[in-house]
């Protein structure tokens, strides 16, 4: 393999590229990215960067000194097509980039809402450009901020704005936020955390209409909200448009096998990849977490280099893990809450906002949520990875007061 192309100058793409070099790949390595920037770190966009405007906060380890990796950068031009048989990637600027091996790491893009059309004071938050625009607008437009969607990005934006002294409201269509990620019981507490800090949390209602001129949101429950800045945080869609018609199997992401292979010589990683995770009985999942982008990016780089010499038993079966910082609380989730048949508080209490919750299914530990309990979440992650039984997990957790 002499020419490897990474599509997506993302966290997953970056980790794939650095792994290729670390593993001794010395051929041509090209990174294609639609954004003008080299890879950067997205988590601070809704937190430290938004709070301070300091772009040093989004610097990704090693990028500044990446010249030694001899990466050929093709930035500012999206990939628009893939010819699997002809082994080329087409670019928006008309260019074509040939490859022997391909790493798909195009990530995901923020969803929009028809009821809140793009316009003055309306923002999505996914990219550095989005974050710059949001920050500038927050400075320019005093007054209340409305966050549409109580997912983690929305929640972090709400917390950051609230801590900056803004009046903040959250509008969430579901009666309880985050149920798919953390279950209903924990979702309730996540909403309560914002109320603790004086955020106007409106659940079970959606935006019917945005009167941008007046700065008013009309909600479907008949109520209204005034907002000088509106941030729409209603999830993301994997960026697979450029792969339409390529012959790869698409459907909420690029479908891969258990090793991250989408086709011979083609792998995918990060937000865009779907694969059967054997740790969860082969459940086909797409994981939008920062940690997964790193882990899977590195994994599929090694997978790609090995080619047919890869041991098929070496599958990618991580425990998904993410964190979210809101106010002075650190929320962390290891594993999965979806499909749990039991949910138990094993340490602390919801009331003190310091708690560990375990999720079980069919006699096994499948997930753990912590609020300001990082140590126990790390321990839980280890337990989940070794397919610990529910009973054993409860025994271990007996000390977690």
């Amino acid at each position: 393999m002499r020419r490897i192309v990474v599509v997506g100058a993302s966290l997953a793409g970056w980790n794939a590229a650095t792994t290729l070099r670390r593993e001794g790949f010395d051929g041509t390595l090209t990174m294609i990215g639609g954004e003008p920037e080299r890879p950067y770190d997205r988590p601070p966009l809704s937190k430290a960067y938004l709070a301070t405007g300091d772009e040093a906060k989004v610097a990704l380890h090693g990028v500044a000194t990446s010249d030694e990796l001899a990466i050929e950068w093709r930035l500012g031009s999206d990939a628009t097509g893939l010819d699997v048989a002809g082994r080329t990637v087409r670019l928006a600027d008309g260019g074509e980039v040939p490859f022997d091996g391909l790493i798909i790491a195009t990530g995901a893009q923020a969803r929009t809402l028809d009821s809140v059309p793009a316009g003055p004071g309306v923002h999505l938050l996914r990219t550095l450009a989005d974050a710059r625009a949001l920050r500038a607008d927050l400075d320019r437009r005093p007054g209340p901020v409305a966050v549409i969607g109580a997912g983690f990005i929305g929640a972090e934006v709400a917390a950051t704005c609230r801590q900056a002294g803004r009046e903040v409201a959250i509008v969430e269509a579901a009666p309880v936020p985050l149920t798919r990620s953390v279950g209903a019981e924990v979702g309730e507490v996540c909403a309560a955390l914002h109320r603790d800090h004086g955020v106007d949390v409106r659940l079970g209602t959606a935006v019917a209409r945005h009167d941008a001129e007046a700065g008013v949101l009309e909600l479907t429950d008949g109520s209204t909200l005034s907002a000088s800045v509106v941030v729409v945080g209603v999830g993301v869609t994997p960026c697979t448009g450029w792969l339409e018609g390529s012959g790869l199997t698409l459907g909420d992401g690029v479908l891969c096998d258990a090793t991250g292979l989408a086709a011979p010589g083609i792998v995918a990683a990060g937000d865009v990849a779907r694969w059967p995770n054997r740790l969860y009985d082969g459940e086909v999942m797409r994981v939008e977490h920062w940690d997964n982008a790193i882990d899977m990016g590195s994994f599929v780089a090694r997978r790609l280099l090995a080619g047919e010499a890869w041991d098929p038993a070496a599958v990618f079966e991580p425990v998904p893990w993410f964190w979210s910082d809101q106010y002075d609380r650190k929320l962390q989730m290891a594993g999965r809450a979806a499909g749990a048949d039991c949910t138990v508080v094993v340490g602390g209490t919801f009331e003190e906002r310091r708690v560990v919750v375990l999720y079980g299914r069919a006699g096994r530990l499948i997930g753990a949520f912590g609020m300001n309990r990082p140590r126990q979440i790390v321990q839980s992650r280890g337990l989940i990875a070794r397919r610990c039984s529910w009973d054993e997990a409860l025994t271990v957790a007996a000390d977690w007061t």
Partner: protein
Amino acid sequence: MAWRVVVDMDLCESNAVCMAILPEVFEVRDDDLLYVLDETPSDSMRDKVEQAVARCPKQAISIAER
């Protein structure tokens, strides 16, 4: 060359990812603070320390060569 583990405690938010990778060196205790148990681990742990550097969500860990 000698090296040592450096954690910027102003950046560290005790996500404990490092502890999952290398508990011999990194420990988040029940006070939710990170303790570096061994600032000069043996060369055999270098790979794992580098992993911890890369995986820290706050980029708070670095390796100082000296």
